[in-house]
C-alpha cells in the first residue's frame, strides 16, 4: 500500500516531444479560432439576411453546436461524416455513378469539430455584442451613402469584434482545451495525443499527465495575459 514509485525521469525524457505537441495544439487552436470567427460572421450575416433558409442554417448550426458535447461533434466529424459518405455513396453509386468521400484526416476532423463548436458559441457572443451597438449607427452609415454590407463591415463589425474580444479569448482557451479530444479520433501529434500515446506504452499515467497539465496551464495563461495586454493597447480610448 502507498508504495507508488514515481519515475519522473522517464516522464521528463518525453518533454521535447510534448513541447512539440504543444505547438501543434496551439496551431489547431489558432486555426480553429480564425475559421470560427469567419464562420460566426457568416452565420451572423445569414441571421440578419432575412432569408428563411439562411436563418434556418444559422439556427441549426448554433443550436447543435451549443447543445451537444464537443466530443460528440469531433467524433461525428471523423466517424460520422465518413459513415455518411458511405451511406450516400450506397445510393449515388448505382443511380448516378459517382461516389461521395467524406473521410477527413484526424487533424482536419479535429479542426472541423472545434471550428464548428467555436462558430456556434462565437455567434452567440457576436449576437450579444450587436445588441450593445445602437441601431442609429447603421442608419447614419446608410444615410452617408453606404450600402448595407458596407455599413455592417465598416461600422458595426469592428465594434462587434471589439466588444466581444474578451469572450473570444475565453473561447480561444476552450479551443486549446478541446484539442485534447483529438486522441479519440487517433490524432497523435498534439500535446494530449503525444502524452496519451506515451502513457499507453510506459504507464507513467500520473507523471506524464501532470507535466501535460502544467504545459496546458502555462499555454492558457500566456494566451489570456497576452489577450489582456493586446486589449489594453488596442482599445484604449
Amino acid at each position, binding site marked *: *500500500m*502507498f*508504495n*507508488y*514509485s*514515481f*519515475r*519522473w*525521469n522517464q516522464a521528463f525524457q518525453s518533454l521535447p516531444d510534448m513541447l512539440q505537441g504543444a505547438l501543434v495544439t496551439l496551431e489547431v487552436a489558432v486555426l480553429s479560432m480564425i475559421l470560427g470567427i469567419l464562420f460566426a460572421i457568416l452565420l451572423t450575416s445569414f441571421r440578419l439576411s432575412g432569408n428563411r433558409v439562411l436563418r434556418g442554417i444559422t439556427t441549426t448550426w448554433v443550436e447543435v453546436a451549443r447543445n451537444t458535447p464537443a466530443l460528440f461533434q469531433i467524433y461525428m466529424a*471523423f*466517424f460520422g461524416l*465518413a*459513415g455518411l459518405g*458511405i451511406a450516400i455513396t450506397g445510393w449515388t453509386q448505382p443511380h448516378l455513378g459517382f461516389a461521395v468521400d467524406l*473521410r477527413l484526416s*484526424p487533424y482536419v476532423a479535429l479542426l472541423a469539430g472545434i471550428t464548428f463548436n467555436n462558430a456556434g458559441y462565437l455567434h452567440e457572443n457576436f449576437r450579444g455584442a450587436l445588441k450593445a451597438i445602437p441601431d442609429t449607427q447603421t442608419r447614419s452609415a446608410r444615410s452617408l451613402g453606404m450600402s448595407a454590407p458596407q455599413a455592417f463591415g465598416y461600422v458595426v463589425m469592428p465594434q462587434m469584434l471589439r466588444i466581444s474580444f474578451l469572450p473570444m479569448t475565453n473561447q480561444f482557451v476552450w479551443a486549446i482545451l478541446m484539442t485534447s479530444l483529438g*486522441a*479519440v479520433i*487517433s490524432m*497523435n501529434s498534439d500535446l494530449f495525443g503525444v502524452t*496519451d*500515446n506515451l*502513457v*499507453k*506504452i*510506459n*504507464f507513467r*499515467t500520473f507523471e506524464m499527465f501532470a507535466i501535460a497539465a502544467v504545459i496546458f496551464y502555462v499555454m492558457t495563461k500566456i494566451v489570456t495575459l497576452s489577450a489582456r495586454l493586446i486589449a489594453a493597447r488596442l482599445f484604449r480610448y
Partner: protein
Amino acid sequence: MKSKVLAFGLTAATAFAGPAMADKLDDIIASGTLRCAVVLDFPPMGSKDADNNPIGFDVDYCNDLAAALGVTAEVVETTFPERIPALMSGRVDVAVASTSDTLERAKTVGVSIPYYAFENAVVARPGLEMASWEDMKGKVVGATAGTYEAIWLEGQVKAWGAGEFRPFQNQADVFLALSQGQLDATVGTMEVANANVASGNFGDIKVVDKAPMVPDYVALITLREEYGLINYMNLFINQQVRTGRYAELYKKWVGEGVPANLTITGVYR
C-alpha cells in the same frame, strides 16, 4: 530517480495492515471474488453477447482460474490501454486480457508464462488490393494504442519513412476506421481478424498476409510483487494445457485446428 510515498505508507501501514504475510493470493481467496480485467471488443477472446454479458476465450479462462481458486469470477471490462492502469490501481486482481509479455510491460507488472500465442495478420480495408504485408509501406495504417502490434507497426512506419500511423483508443474503433476506409490497413491478431472478417460487420475487409512478427505470446498479468499469485497462475496455465481444457476452449472459440504451441525450444522459462 525513485521516490516512494513513505510518509503515507507508514501511517497507512499502522492503520490498515492485516496479517503481515497476507499477499494477493490470500486476499483473493479470503474475499471470495477474483476480479479479472478482460477486453471485450476483441472477439473471439472477449466480446459481449446480445444481453451485454461478457463471453469469449479470455472470459472462460477467468472463470476457470476463479474456479480453481474456489472463488467467483468478476469480469471487469477494460480497453487494451486501460488494462495495466486498472491493475496498478487495484481495480482488478489479474488481467486475463491477451496481454503480450513485453519486456517494457514487465518493468511495471508481473507476467505469467504464456497462455496463448497469436499470429498477427495484416488486414486491408474494403476495395484495397494488397499482395503482401510490405504493401503497407506508404499507406495509412493504425492499431490500438500501446499494443504489441501497434508498437511494431509504428516502428515499421518510422523505418519505411513513408505513410502514416494512427493509434486508436480501442480495438473497435480500429476496425470501424478500417471498414470506413479511414485506415488502409491494420495489423491484428489472426483470430480476431478472421472473426471480424467472418462477422460481415465490417464490409469487405480482408486478411492479406501474416505480419512478419515474432509470435505474439500473451500472458496473464498481475502486480509485479505478487509472486505467490504469479506462481499459481503459471501452474494454472500448465494445468489447462495438461488437462486438455486449452484445446477444448480453442475449439469452442477459435475453431478446428491445433492450438498454438506455448513452449519455445532451446530456452527455459
